[in-house]
């Protein structure tokens, strides 16, 4: 780990002032930042510890049916908040499918959004990586790339954003609250993360020193609570990034879909909202044919970036199944294996 100056500001204004210098990084739990620093993939000269900032650890269920979540709320606490999990079950399920219990106990909401889009070549400082070292090239293009992006990638970078949490947030129109030297602003979660294009190192819309203070879920997002699921396909049952994941949410009235939401994870450098798929479901019956049409549309622009053509068909099937699960209804209790295709509601042995 590189040497750094450690700063622990007492207010948001102090934090922003301390972080508005080149090479500064905010530290919350550090579950991603410290990991990257240990490998040399991140080398901040100044670490601004925001864990003591007051007022950023609240979960507020709002009178209009929406919710506001402070940036320092821990992933596990949000997933276990009864009112939040009841209103936004796909968000809770996604949170509980991510990382490990120890990491979820530490990792924060803001930190989850700020975790780096990354692949093994980003971690390996002996490899060329445009995201870590702009202009260096991309060793993943001709390397081990079966898990890489199939949507929105560029010749500059084919890595994926690994967040589970952000996938239902994108589907449900979450808004990120940020504060910087020039004041506060809102950024739609869907616009927060950037596709790589020719500047993969520019991952988010944040300006230098800007700090995430919280995020909001709009009241409409709670309207999907009866039919909302997150489905995550991994190469082992637990504690692994998604190969492909999907957050699917439906509003069904009189046997007809009146509104649908869909976002995919593990397929792009950002959580991937699929609006064309949503549109085709409006007015349809909630059946496999409709969901397969939606899945076709969701992946219409997908193309392999390497040895990963299989992920495109996999994603279609995950989308179809996530919608079938959502149509069947949000389970009364969180499955024993959240978001897993092997999940059973009863908690009985699913395998082994």
């Amino acid at each position, binding site marked *: *780990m590189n*040497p*750094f*100056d*450690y700063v*622990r500001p007492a207010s948001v204004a102090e934090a922003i002032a301390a972080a508005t210098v080149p090479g500064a990084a905010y*530290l919350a*739990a*550090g*579950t991603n930042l*410290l*990991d990257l620093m*240990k*490998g040399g993939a991140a080398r901040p000269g100044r*670490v601004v*510890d925001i*864990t003591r900032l007051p007022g950023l650890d609240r979960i507020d269920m709002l009178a209009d049916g929406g919710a506001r979540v402070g940036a320092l709320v821990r992933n*596990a606490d949000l997933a*276990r908040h009864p009112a939040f999990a009841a209103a936004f079950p796909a968000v809770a399920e996604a949170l509980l499918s991510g*990382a*490990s*219990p*120890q*990491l979820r*106990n*530490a990792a924060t909401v803001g930190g989850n959004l700020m975790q780096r889009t990354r692949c093994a070549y980003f971690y390996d400082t002996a490899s060329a990586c445009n995201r870590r070292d702009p202009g260096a090239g991309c060793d993943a293009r001709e390397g081990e790339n079966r898990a890489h992006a199939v949507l929105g990638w560029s010749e500059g970078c084919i890595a994926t954003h690994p967040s589970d949490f952000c996938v239902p947030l994108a589907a449900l129109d979450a808004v990120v609250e940020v504060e910087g030297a020039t004041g506060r602003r809102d950024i739609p979660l869907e616009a927060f993360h950037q596709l790589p294009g020719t500047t993969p190192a520019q991952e988010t819309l944040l300006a230098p020193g800007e700090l995430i203070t919280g995020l909001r879920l709009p009241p409409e997002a709670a309207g999907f609570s009866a039919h909302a699921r997150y489905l995550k396909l991994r190469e082992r*049952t*637990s*504690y692994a990034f998604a190969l492909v994941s999907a957050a699917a949410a439906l509003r069904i009235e009189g046997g007809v879909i009146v509104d649908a939401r869909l976002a995919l994870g593990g397929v792009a450098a950002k959580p991937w909202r699929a609006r064309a798929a949503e549109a085709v479901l409006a007015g349809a019956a909630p059946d496999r044919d409709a969901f397969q049409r939606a899945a076709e549309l969701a992946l219409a622009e997908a193309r392999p970036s390497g040895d990963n053509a299989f992920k495109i068909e996999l994603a279609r099937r995950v989308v179809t199944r996530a919608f079938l699960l959502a149509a069947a209804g949000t389970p009364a209790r969180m499955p*024993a*294996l*959240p978001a897993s295709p092997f999940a*059973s509601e009863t*908690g*009985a*042995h*699913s395998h082994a």
Partner: protein
Amino acid sequence: MTLSISLTINGVRRDVDLDDPRVTLLDLLRERLDLTGTKKGCDRGQCGACTVLVDGRRINSCLALAISHDGAEITTIEGLAKGDLLHPVQAAFIAHDGFQCGFCTPGQIMSAVGLIGEGEAGDDPERIREGMSGNLCRCGAYAGITEAVIEAQRRLAEDDRRIA
């Protein structure tokens, strides 16, 4: 630059001067405070051998800066037994052969204590396996670990009922 922090570790207050902000909680415990029960496996948050309780919650101490946890209450494997009386989770790991080489065991036990405290897994083996998935065991003692957690969970629940 000297950075002074104060931690309560296994009920004892420890004041520590750090000469470098890079020190992790894991390295502080092992290298500065001689609490070597907490193990360094991967040192990258992937294996769980370094699991400790911070303010009652299980976390990976390898991915925590010590200085950022100034004022915290830490419980390590050394803080579980009361003299010669093992903690119920420790006793259950012995009774069910929940280990072979033992290197991952302190982390497994601290994780199990955290899991039982979270109160969501109950005696459902599938939920226990999922809840223990942040702890790897290269000897493959998982079956015994699951049985140990089930038994410890039952015993602690009985103790709670007796007290209540």
